């Protein structure tokens, strides 16, 4: 399974690079840092039905860092929600594939782009799936648990500056929303500087823990670690996976570089990047 998800991660990195290069768009670094997270989620964890995107019992994934749209569209296309060929319309005139995540794209739950919106909505989804129809904590049995749709929210580190997230973190802990998992793509670089310099989040794990969350800190590019953190039981508490990642991961000259929050690769840079990913041109 890990081999499959790694292959998927490489494929969607390639799509995102081509899409962003063609559109001369931004945020390639932010896309590449969460490629492995998306590959594991869509490759082996999420219960979704591409033929029926509105299936009521589906798991929900909200990508709150809406600037990571290109790679989300890439993984949705690879998963079969819409044709892979459509990806190259990204950010082009008239395309539904807008530069920030749009719910007009099949498989997308929530339009995002303004930061700090995804987690509150994720709380509402988790609450809806827990009460009143979902079984109460004291009556949950192992066989019943999987019937409750799970809600996942991917957050950027920079967006944790937004107060609305801390309202939601407080809320989810208080209400013991155990069908909710937040994943922080902690690539350490935000819009105009390093997270440490702009508004330091540390000690980040302690903050979430003190708000009543179960906390996992992992290498966000290690598929086995992602798998096992996602699988960890968290009955009675919401879960956060703080995924330590590298901005621009997979393209040597982009890794950890603030500039690739904005720049798009030219033809030569794209060719180098794709060669590096070993997915050809």
């Amino acid at each position: 399974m890990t081999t499959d998800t790694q292959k998927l991660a490489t494929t969607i990195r390639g799509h995102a690079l081509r899409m962003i290069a063609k559109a001369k768009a931004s945020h390639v670094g932010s896309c590449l840092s969460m490629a492995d997270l998306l590959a594991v989620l869509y490759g082996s964890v999420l219960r979704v039905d591409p033929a029926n995107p509105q299936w009521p019992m589906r798991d929900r994934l909200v990508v709150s860092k809406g600037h990571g749209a290109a790679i989300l569209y890439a993984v949705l296309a690879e998963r079969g929600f819409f044709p892979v060929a459509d990806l190259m319309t990204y950010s082009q005139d008239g395309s539904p594939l807008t530069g920030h995540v749009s719910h007009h794209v099949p498989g997308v739950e929530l339009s995002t782009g303004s930061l700090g919106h995804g987690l509150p909505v994720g709380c509402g989804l988790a609450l809806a799936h827990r009460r009143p129809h979902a079984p109460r904590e004291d009556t949950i049995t192992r066989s019943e648990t999987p019937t409750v749709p799970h809600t996942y929210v991917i957050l950027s580190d920079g967006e944790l500056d937004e107060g609305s997230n801390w309202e939601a973190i407080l809320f989810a802990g208080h209400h013991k929303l155990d069908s909710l998992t937040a994943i922080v793509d902690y690539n350490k670089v935000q819009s105009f500087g390093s997270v440490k310099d702009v508004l330091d989040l540390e000690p980040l794990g302690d903050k979430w823990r003190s708000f009543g969350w179960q906390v996992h800190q992992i290498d966000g590019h290690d598929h086995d670690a992602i798998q096992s953190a996602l699988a960890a039981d968290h009955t009675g508490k919401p879960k956060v996976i703080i995924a330590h990642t590298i901005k621009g991961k997979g393209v040597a000259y982009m890794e950890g570089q603030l500039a690739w929050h904005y720049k798009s690769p030219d033809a030569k840079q794209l060719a180098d990047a794709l060669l590096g990913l070993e997915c050809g041109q």
Partner: protein
Amino acid sequence: MRTSFIETLVQVAERDSRVWLLTGDLGYSVLEKFSTKFPDRYLNAGVAEQNMVGVAAGLAMTGKVVFVYSIANFPTLRCLEQFRNDVCYHNLSVKIVAVGCGLAYGGHGYTHHGVEDIGVMSLLPHVTVMAPGDPVETRWATRTLAEHAGPAYLRLGKAGEPVVHQSEPRIELGKAVQVIDGTQATLISTGGMLETAVRIATILAARRVSVRVLSMPTLRPFDADRVIAEAKRTGRIITLEEHGPGGLGTMVGECLAQAGLGVRFVPMRLQPEPTLCAGSQAYLCGRHGLSLERMVEVTEEVAGTPAADRLRDYGVPIPQPVGSGRERVS
């Protein structure tokens, strides 16, 4: 109005299990009627309006009809982007209910004055905006919004507003309601100013000035057809609202201008500047020029003055009647 709202919501929730109520830690002695009856569909989200509206959106995404209750600016301006992006853009069934709008919380100061809410909320996509004029209209609005798909804003006063409609009128979504017939001017009111509008018309009737009173409980969708019809019928339009620029008066003005109707039009509304002093609702309205005496005077003057003469006073070109074949400028 808030009593009428909660009693109706309880009735609606008895029939419709999709109906939820969230509050931002407000509604003491009001919301208990709902919370004790439907504890699984009630939630105090705490003093955290941004999260509350996001949570409401998440609930609505699973098919629930979510009423979100707080006072004045807290469920509107404080979480405006959550309502815009998460609710309106996604066309979700979340109904924001703000009580104490206008200058109802007069003595509490400007932070508690809901005087821009109609304008702001009306700008958003898919939204239905309602400002009922009395408890009867509030009952209708609550029932209508519970059945209506999509986002909505319900603007309410506080408690103790008098019943204006002595019988159950036929009200339609997006339509004005005639309360008093008249011929010389049309006074259009929205929200809790309805009672005042009726008092103005009653006082003027005793002076043999005939003023028609309409209530406008729905502001989006806006009843432009009725405004145009009234402009053609009485030729003099006055609006009345406890709101600054951007509300009913602005909507009516835009409508008249687009229709090319050069009728006499006076918006009676609050001034855009903040109210700096304490005072009762009536006192503060007076400071904004909305004392009963002043409003009677303005309405009488408008109703008694030929539109064209008045326009001449201001040096404004006199508009030709519609369809008079005015010259084409080429």
